[in-house]
Protein backbone atom coordinates (compact mmCIF):
# COMPACT_ATOMS: atom_id res chain seq x y z
CA UNK A 1 0.00 0.00 0.00
CA UNK A 2 1.19 3.52 -0.82
CA UNK A 3 2.15 5.72 2.17
CA UNK A 4 -0.42 8.03 3.76
CA UNK A 5 -1.02 11.01 1.44
CA UNK A 6 -3.16 13.68 3.18
CA UNK A 7 -3.21 16.01 0.13
CA UNK A 8 -4.71 13.40 -2.21
CA UNK A 9 -7.11 12.36 0.56
CA UNK A 10 -8.30 15.97 1.01
CA UNK A 11 -8.63 16.65 -2.75
CA UNK A 12 -10.49 13.37 -3.33
CA UNK A 13 -12.74 13.97 -0.33
CA UNK A 14 -13.56 17.50 -1.50
CA UNK A 15 -14.53 16.10 -4.94
CA UNK A 16 -16.87 13.59 -3.25
CA UNK A 17 -18.46 16.40 -1.23
CA UNK A 18 -18.71 18.55 -4.36
CA UNK A 19 -20.41 15.74 -6.33
CA UNK A 20 -22.97 15.22 -3.53
CA UNK A 21 -23.60 18.98 -3.30
CA UNK A 22 -24.02 19.43 -7.07
CA UNK A 23 -26.46 16.51 -7.33
CA UNK A 24 -28.58 17.99 -4.52
CA UNK A 25 -28.41 21.62 -5.71
CA UNK A 26 -29.15 20.85 -9.34
CA UNK A 27 -31.33 17.71 -9.40
CA UNK A 28 -32.57 17.63 -5.79
CA UNK A 29 -31.34 14.07 -5.25
CA UNK A 30 -29.30 12.53 -2.43
CA UNK A 31 -26.01 11.04 -3.67
CA UNK A 32 -26.37 7.84 -1.67
CA UNK A 33 -24.90 5.01 -3.69
CA UNK A 34 -26.85 2.20 -2.00
CA UNK A 35 -30.09 4.12 -2.58
CA UNK A 36 -29.25 4.88 -6.21
CA UNK A 37 -28.30 1.25 -6.93
CA UNK A 38 -31.06 -0.24 -4.78
CA UNK A 39 -33.83 1.79 -6.43
CA UNK A 40 -32.31 0.95 -9.81
CA UNK A 41 -32.79 -2.79 -9.22
CA UNK A 42 -36.06 -2.46 -7.27
CA UNK A 43 -38.93 -3.64 -9.50
CA UNK A 44 -41.18 -1.01 -7.91
CA UNK A 45 -38.60 1.77 -8.34
CA UNK A 46 -39.03 4.38 -11.03
CA UNK A 47 -36.81 7.14 -12.37
CA UNK A 48 -34.12 4.75 -13.51
CA UNK A 49 -32.34 6.84 -16.15
CA UNK A 50 -30.53 9.33 -13.90
CA UNK A 51 -29.55 6.53 -11.50
CA UNK A 52 -28.06 4.54 -14.36
CA UNK A 53 -26.23 7.66 -15.59
CA UNK A 54 -24.76 8.29 -12.11
CA UNK A 55 -23.56 4.66 -11.85
CA UNK A 56 -22.05 4.88 -15.36
CA UNK A 57 -20.13 8.00 -14.31
CA UNK A 58 -18.90 6.23 -11.18
CA UNK A 59 -17.42 3.40 -13.28
CA UNK A 60 -16.11 5.74 -16.01
CA UNK A 61 -14.02 7.82 -13.58
CA UNK A 62 -11.39 5.15 -12.75
CA UNK A 63 -11.16 4.33 -16.46
CA UNK A 64 -10.54 8.00 -17.34
CA UNK A 65 -7.91 8.30 -14.61
CA UNK A 66 -6.24 5.10 -15.88
CA UNK A 67 -6.28 6.51 -19.43
CA UNK A 68 -4.36 9.53 -18.18
CA UNK A 69 -1.49 7.26 -17.15
CA UNK A 70 -2.04 6.15 -13.55
CA UNK A 71 -2.22 2.35 -13.21
CA UNK A 72 -5.69 0.86 -12.62
CA UNK A 73 -5.13 -1.65 -9.84
CA UNK A 74 -7.68 -4.18 -8.63
CA UNK A 75 -8.12 -4.03 -4.84
CA UNK A 76 -6.92 -6.77 -2.49
CA UNK A 77 -9.83 -9.11 -1.83
CA UNK A 78 -10.35 -12.06 0.57
CA UNK A 79 -11.53 -15.57 -0.40
CA UNK A 80 -14.83 -16.02 -2.20
CA UNK A 81 -16.84 -17.22 0.80
CA UNK A 82 -15.98 -14.06 2.75
CA UNK A 83 -16.69 -11.94 -0.35
CA UNK A 84 -20.18 -13.45 -0.78
CA UNK A 85 -21.08 -13.12 2.92
CA UNK A 86 -19.79 -9.52 3.04
CA UNK A 87 -21.57 -8.56 -0.20
CA UNK A 88 -24.89 -9.95 1.08
CA UNK A 89 -24.46 -8.11 4.40
CA UNK A 90 -23.62 -4.82 2.67
CA UNK A 91 -26.56 -5.12 0.25
CA UNK A 92 -29.16 -6.19 2.83
CA UNK A 93 -27.83 -3.89 5.57
CA UNK A 94 -27.71 -0.72 3.46
CA UNK A 95 -31.30 -1.27 2.29
CA UNK A 96 -32.60 -2.04 5.78
CA UNK A 97 -30.66 0.89 7.24
CA UNK A 98 -31.63 3.23 4.35
CA UNK A 99 -28.08 4.19 3.39
CA UNK A 100 -24.35 3.67 3.33
CA UNK A 101 -21.15 5.68 3.72
CA UNK A 102 -22.24 8.22 1.10
CA UNK A 103 -25.95 8.63 1.85
CA UNK A 104 -25.61 8.64 5.65
CA UNK A 105 -21.91 9.50 6.08
CA UNK A 106 -21.62 12.40 3.61
CA UNK A 107 -25.12 13.63 2.67
CA UNK A 108 -26.91 12.78 5.93
CA UNK A 109 -24.28 14.25 8.22
CA UNK A 110 -24.07 17.30 5.92
CA UNK A 111 -27.73 18.03 6.63
CA UNK A 112 -27.20 17.17 10.34
CA UNK A 113 -29.74 14.32 10.28
CA UNK A 114 -29.87 12.49 13.63
CA UNK A 115 -30.71 9.22 11.82
CA UNK A 116 -27.63 9.50 9.61
CA UNK A 117 -25.35 10.43 12.50
CA UNK A 118 -26.60 7.38 14.46
CA UNK A 119 -26.26 5.10 11.42
CA UNK A 120 -22.73 6.32 10.64
CA UNK A 121 -21.59 5.82 14.23
CA UNK A 122 -23.12 2.32 14.17
CA UNK A 123 -21.57 1.07 10.92
CA UNK A 124 -18.18 2.60 11.77
CA UNK A 125 -18.15 0.99 15.24
CA UNK A 126 -19.25 -2.44 13.95
CA UNK A 127 -16.74 -2.35 11.07
CA UNK A 128 -13.95 -1.46 13.53
CA UNK A 129 -15.01 -4.33 15.80
CA UNK A 130 -15.00 -6.77 12.87
CA UNK A 131 -11.52 -5.65 11.78
CA UNK A 132 -10.25 -5.84 15.37
CA UNK A 133 -11.53 -9.42 15.50
CA UNK A 134 -10.31 -10.60 12.07
CA UNK A 135 -6.88 -8.94 12.33
CA UNK A 136 -6.07 -9.36 16.00
CA UNK A 137 -8.13 -12.23 17.42
CA UNK A 138 -8.02 -14.82 14.62
Amino acid sequence: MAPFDPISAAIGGALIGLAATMLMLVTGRIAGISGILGDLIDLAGGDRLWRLAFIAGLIAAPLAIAASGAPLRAPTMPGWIVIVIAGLLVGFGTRLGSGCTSGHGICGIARLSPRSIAATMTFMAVAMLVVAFTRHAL
Partner: protein
Amino acid sequence: MPIFFALFCGFTFGAGLVISGMTDTARVLGFLDVLAIPKDGWDPTLAIVMAAALVVSIPGFWLAKRRERPILAGLAAWPTRTDLDRPLIVGAALFGAGWGLVGLCPGPAIANLATLSPPVLLFVVAMIAGMGAHDLWQRAQRSAALPAASDG
Protein backbone atom coordinates in the same frame (compact mmCIF):
# COMPACT_ATOMS: atom_id res chain seq x y z
CA MET B 1 -30.04 17.50 -19.31
CA PRO B 2 -30.42 16.15 -15.73
CA ILE B 3 -29.24 12.79 -17.11
CA PHE B 4 -25.92 14.25 -18.29
CA PHE B 5 -25.65 16.10 -15.04
CA ALA B 6 -26.14 12.87 -13.05
CA LEU B 7 -23.42 11.27 -15.20
CA PHE B 8 -21.12 14.20 -14.44
CA CYS B 9 -21.84 13.96 -10.69
CA GLY B 10 -21.20 10.19 -10.73
CA PHE B 11 -17.94 10.83 -12.57
CA THR B 12 -16.83 13.49 -10.06
CA PHE B 13 -17.78 11.21 -7.16
CA GLY B 14 -15.83 8.29 -8.69
CA ALA B 15 -12.79 10.47 -9.38
CA GLY B 16 -12.88 11.57 -5.73
CA LEU B 17 -12.96 7.95 -4.57
CA VAL B 18 -9.97 6.99 -6.75
CA ILE B 19 -7.86 10.10 -5.98
CA SER B 20 -8.48 9.81 -2.23
CA GLY B 21 -7.53 6.11 -2.21
CA MET B 22 -10.96 4.94 -1.06
CA THR B 23 -11.17 2.33 -3.85
CA ASP B 24 -8.21 0.61 -2.14
CA THR B 25 -9.56 -1.95 0.35
CA ALA B 26 -6.20 -2.04 2.19
CA ARG B 27 -6.52 1.68 2.95
CA VAL B 28 -10.08 1.42 4.19
CA LEU B 29 -9.27 -1.60 6.39
CA GLY B 30 -6.14 0.26 7.55
CA PHE B 31 -8.40 3.03 8.85
CA LEU B 32 -10.88 0.62 10.46
CA ASP B 33 -8.00 -1.16 12.26
CA VAL B 34 -8.07 1.09 15.34
CA LEU B 35 -6.00 -1.40 17.37
CA ALA B 36 -3.08 -0.38 15.12
CA ILE B 37 -3.16 3.21 16.50
CA PRO B 38 -0.83 2.52 19.47
CA LYS B 39 1.44 0.48 17.16
CA ASP B 40 1.83 3.34 14.64
CA GLY B 41 0.32 1.29 11.81
CA TRP B 42 -3.00 3.14 11.54
CA ASP B 43 -4.08 4.78 8.25
CA PRO B 44 -6.02 8.03 8.89
CA THR B 45 -6.91 8.52 5.18
CA LEU B 46 -10.65 7.78 5.50
CA ALA B 47 -11.04 10.35 8.29
CA ILE B 48 -9.39 13.04 6.12
CA VAL B 49 -11.57 12.08 3.12
CA MET B 50 -14.75 12.29 5.14
CA ALA B 51 -13.75 15.58 6.78
CA ALA B 52 -12.85 17.13 3.40
CA ALA B 53 -16.12 15.92 1.88
CA LEU B 54 -18.11 17.43 4.77
CA VAL B 55 -16.23 20.75 4.56
CA VAL B 56 -17.76 21.05 1.06
CA SER B 57 -21.11 19.32 1.58
CA ILE B 58 -22.19 21.00 4.86
CA PRO B 59 -22.26 24.55 3.36
CA GLY B 60 -23.41 23.07 0.03
CA PHE B 61 -26.43 21.35 1.57
CA TRP B 62 -27.18 24.43 3.67
CA LEU B 63 -27.34 26.42 0.43
CA ALA B 64 -29.47 23.76 -1.27
CA LYS B 65 -31.88 23.75 1.66
CA ARG B 66 -32.43 27.50 1.39
CA ARG B 67 -33.54 27.19 -2.22
CA GLU B 68 -37.21 26.66 -2.89
CA ARG B 69 -36.44 24.04 -5.51
CA PRO B 70 -33.44 22.48 -7.27
CA ILE B 71 -31.97 24.22 -10.33
CA LEU B 72 -33.05 21.52 -12.83
CA ALA B 73 -35.89 19.72 -11.03
CA GLY B 74 -39.33 20.54 -9.68
CA LEU B 75 -38.84 19.19 -6.19
CA ALA B 76 -35.93 18.17 -3.98
CA ALA B 77 -36.13 14.66 -2.52
CA TRP B 78 -35.08 15.62 1.03
CA PRO B 79 -35.41 12.73 3.50
CA THR B 80 -37.96 13.73 6.15
CA ARG B 81 -37.63 11.17 8.95
CA THR B 82 -35.84 12.09 12.17
CA ASP B 83 -36.73 9.15 14.46
CA LEU B 84 -34.20 6.45 15.34
CA ASP B 85 -35.77 3.04 14.78
CA ARG B 86 -34.59 -0.54 14.93
CA PRO B 87 -34.23 -1.18 11.15
CA LEU B 88 -31.91 1.85 10.87
CA ILE B 89 -29.54 0.61 13.57
CA VAL B 90 -29.73 -3.13 12.70
CA GLY B 91 -29.23 -2.33 9.01
CA ALA B 92 -26.26 -0.07 9.73
CA ALA B 93 -24.74 -2.80 11.94
CA LEU B 94 -25.15 -5.48 9.23
CA PHE B 95 -23.65 -3.11 6.67
CA GLY B 96 -20.74 -2.33 9.01
CA ALA B 97 -20.04 -6.05 9.46
CA GLY B 98 -19.82 -6.59 5.69
CA TRP B 99 -17.76 -3.44 5.23
CA GLY B 100 -15.28 -4.57 7.88
CA LEU B 101 -14.92 -8.03 6.30
CA VAL B 102 -13.81 -6.76 2.86
CA GLY B 103 -13.25 -2.98 3.05
CA LEU B 104 -15.73 -2.21 0.28
CA CYS B 105 -18.87 -0.10 0.66
CA PRO B 106 -21.28 0.37 -2.29
CA GLY B 107 -19.58 3.37 -3.98
CA PRO B 108 -16.03 1.98 -4.13
CA ALA B 109 -17.41 -1.49 -4.99
CA ILE B 110 -19.12 -0.11 -8.11
CA ALA B 111 -16.19 2.14 -9.07
CA ASN B 112 -13.89 -0.89 -8.77
CA LEU B 113 -15.93 -2.70 -11.44
CA ALA B 114 -13.74 -0.69 -13.83
CA THR B 115 -10.81 -2.97 -12.91
CA LEU B 116 -12.76 -6.00 -14.24
CA SER B 117 -11.59 -7.90 -11.15
CA PRO B 118 -13.65 -11.13 -10.76
CA PRO B 119 -13.66 -10.92 -6.91
CA VAL B 120 -15.04 -7.35 -7.13
CA LEU B 121 -17.70 -8.51 -9.60
CA LEU B 122 -18.62 -11.33 -7.20
CA PHE B 123 -18.92 -8.81 -4.35
CA VAL B 124 -21.20 -6.53 -6.40
CA VAL B 125 -23.39 -9.48 -7.47
CA ALA B 126 -23.71 -10.59 -3.83
CA MET B 127 -24.46 -6.99 -2.78
CA ILE B 128 -27.24 -6.69 -5.38
CA ALA B 129 -28.59 -10.09 -4.26
CA GLY B 130 -28.63 -8.78 -0.67
CA MET B 131 -30.56 -5.68 -1.78
CA GLY B 132 -33.03 -7.82 -3.75
CA ALA B 133 -33.45 -10.18 -0.78
CA HIS B 134 -34.28 -7.19 1.42
CA ASP B 135 -36.90 -5.91 -1.04
CA LEU B 136 -38.54 -9.35 -1.36
CA TRP B 137 -38.59 -9.76 2.43
CA GLN B 138 -40.14 -6.31 2.85
CA ARG B 139 -42.80 -7.09 0.26
CA ALA B 140 -43.63 -10.41 1.96
CA GLN B 141 -43.86 -8.63 5.33
CA ARG B 142 -46.17 -5.96 3.93
CA SER B 143 -48.54 -8.44 2.34
CA ALA B 144 -48.57 -10.53 5.55
CA ALA B 145 -49.46 -7.40 7.54
CA LEU B 146 -52.45 -6.56 5.34
CA PRO B 147 -55.88 -7.82 6.41
CA ALA B 148 -56.56 -11.09 4.60
CA ALA B 149 -59.28 -9.66 2.38
CA SER B 150 -58.43 -11.73 -0.66
CA ASP B 151 -58.42 -14.92 1.40
CA GLY B 152 -62.02 -14.36 2.35
